[in-house]
């Protein structure tokens, strides 16, 4: 596995690597949830994390924007560099880091505010808009990109918590996109979406790839194959295999990867 990573490092030039993780360990109390994970995530690329439930995909994703700081019992070891800078360094402000590395959570968590205010939350905090019209634009654009605009344009002042589960999920995507992060971490963003909305979100992900790097956790092999260029397979807290998506799905090196994508373990 470490070979894979170093081989990759040789292939791409250093500037292409957005996030570099080295020997990351995560403990929840005594539970060793992430074991020795080293991975390089490229810029302007969609990377998919796949693996059976409970294998630590969400946990690793949350390390990348220090969301695990909010969990008292979580302890993280190892090194994670974004743009060459150690994000767990004392001088790094996690608040600024999270503005740069946005996140869509596994469970939709709209704020108890209006739909508009939900999306405008990030831009307002970071002062991304000068005028009210600016803000309106940002909100509309974000909602359009998340394929939600047509459904909510007439009720922007209605509470976000009153939307359906799938709409809430897209609202959270719009909320994350509106902040213009450089890296977007998406934890099962389509788990509650119908095929049409899923298609629209996948289009969005593809579009975001032009400027950003996107990491997506998914339980759908088809989705991973459709949207990602790189795929990482996690199993029991370890990174089993990390390679181009084509390679993982056509010619996996590890037998565990093969059994998982063909549906024999899960």
């Amino acid at each position, binding site marked *: 596995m470490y070979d894979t990573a170093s081989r990759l490092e040789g292939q791409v030039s250093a500037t292409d690597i957005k996030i570099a993780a080295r020997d990351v360990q995560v403990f929840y109390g005594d539970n060793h949830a992430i074991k020795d994970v080293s991975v390089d995530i490229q810029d302007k690329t969609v990377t998919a994390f796949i693996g059976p439930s409970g294998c630590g995909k969400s946990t690793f994703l949350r390390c990348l924007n220090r969301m695990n700081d909010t969990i008292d019992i979580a302890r993280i070891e190892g090194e994670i560099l974004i743009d060459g800078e150690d994000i767990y360094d004392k001088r790094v402000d996690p608040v600024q880091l999270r503005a740069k590395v946005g996140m869509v*959570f596994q469970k939709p*968590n709209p704020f108890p505010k209006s739909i508009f205010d939900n999306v405008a*939350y990030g831009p307002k905090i970071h002062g991304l808009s000068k005028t009210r019209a600016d803000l309106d634009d940002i909100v509309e654009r974000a909602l359009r990109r998340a394929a939600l605009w047509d459904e909510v344009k007439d009720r922007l002042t209605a509470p976000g918590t009153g939307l359906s589960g799938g709409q809430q999920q897209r609202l959270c995507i719009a909320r994350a996109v509106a902040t213009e992060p450089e890296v977007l971490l998406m934890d099962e963003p389509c788990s509650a979406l119908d095929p049409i909305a899923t298609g629209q979100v996948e289009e969005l992900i593809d579009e975001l790839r032009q400027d950003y790097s996107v990491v997506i956790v998914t339980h759908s092999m088809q989705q991973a194959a459709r949207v990602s260029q790189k795929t990482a397979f996690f199993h029991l807290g370890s990174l089993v295999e990390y390679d181009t998506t084509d390679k993982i799905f056509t010619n996996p090196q590890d037998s565990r990867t093969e059994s998982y994508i063909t549906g024999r373990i899960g």
Partner: protein
Amino acid sequence: MPAFWIVLIVLGIAVAGFVLGRSRALNAVIGDRRDLHSLPNYYGWNAALKGVVPALGLLAIWLILQPMLIERAVTGLVSEQAIAEERDLGLVLADVRRVAAGLDAAVAQGLLSGDAARDLSTASDDIRATLATAGVALGSDVQPAVLAAAQRFRVLSGQAGLVMVALVLAISAGGTLYGLREVRPDFRARNVVEQGIRAILIGAACIAILTTVGIVLSLVFNTIEFFRLYPAADFFFSTTWSPSFGGGSELGILPLLWGTLYISLIALLVAVPIGLFAAVYLSEYATKRVRSVAKPAIEILAGIPTIVYGLFALLTVGPLLMKVFGDDGLGWMQAGTAVMTAGLVMGIMLIPFVSSLSDDIINAVPQALRDGSYGLGATQSETIRQVILPAALPGIVGAILLAASRAIGETMIVVLGAGAAARMELNPFEAMTTVTAKIVSQLTGDADFASPEALVAFALGMTLFVITLGLNVLALYIVRKYREQYE
């Protein structure tokens, strides 16, 4: 037989019913409990409940009604005397009860035999002396009519008591037997017990509700009585409060309401910011260790008796304020007892109400909302201001209104800290007083209970009740409104 023993016997019957019911159920299916519709215990409970609930229900009703009915029966004996003496019939009846109780005590202590008690007469015996030895002191000599009524009272009570014991025990035993006879393998004991439990719960709820209704009714009747003696318009709109027990009082509620609201306002101005900030600190910033020490420490404040707060106001806060605002300082304050003194101390008392409730409410805001906000790059205080507090607002408003009703109903701190002068002033360093403090002083004076000066206490209490009720309704309304918006 005292009610206590009756209850014990009924419970004993029920225990026996439980044991028998259980074993009968097991015998009915020869030990294979799978043939029973319900678990064996349910058959036991069925018999026990049928033995207890109707019997104790009858006992309760009987104990309430018996004195009323007997009193009505003896009224005829003393009504003429009451008219002759121009005394209130109720007071004469109270005498009758007292003499009857005295005779009971005398018989119980062996000073009189039961027959002697029945045959006493005012002509031949010094009843007052006899009863005094038995520990019941009477204000005057016993009138013949009163004695006759008291003797009749005793006879009736004795007979009714016997009938009651017999009936209650019969119903208890009958109920248990009926429950035992019902035991058959296909009898749905489980469902019947479920209904029995529901009946008990409903009974408990009814007692709570009826008590409330009773309290309100007694307030209402006395208030109406007051308004018959004193014009309502003067009560609600007069700005003078000067009761004089000789008559010619002015009983305007406005100065008292003003004092109440002024002191409560100051108390809330102290308690709400401090309590809320403390709650935010405890729930969002404090480490587990700090929280586990600090939260109980704040809650200790809620356990201090209000009289201690009153002393604190009188002995510490008042003099302290005098130093700064009194004649030696700014010269705004004449004495230690003032609106400010009481308000500050009451505010301290309310801090734990606001902080403890708000803390629970803030803690109940799901972690996912915090994560969502942090994930967008918000700082902790931005998250608190823009996500957590709005989400917790309905609950916090509820906590504040609860604190407000506490402030409005508080008495002891006001009596000791704010003085007794009913005034309408703006200066918070003047002594003023509140509705509750005046209720106390009106009822503890030696005014005739039927005079407007005493009855005004009920009108004041009623007004206070309506205000706090209004506050609670408002709190409910606000909570509902926000809940609709957010969930």
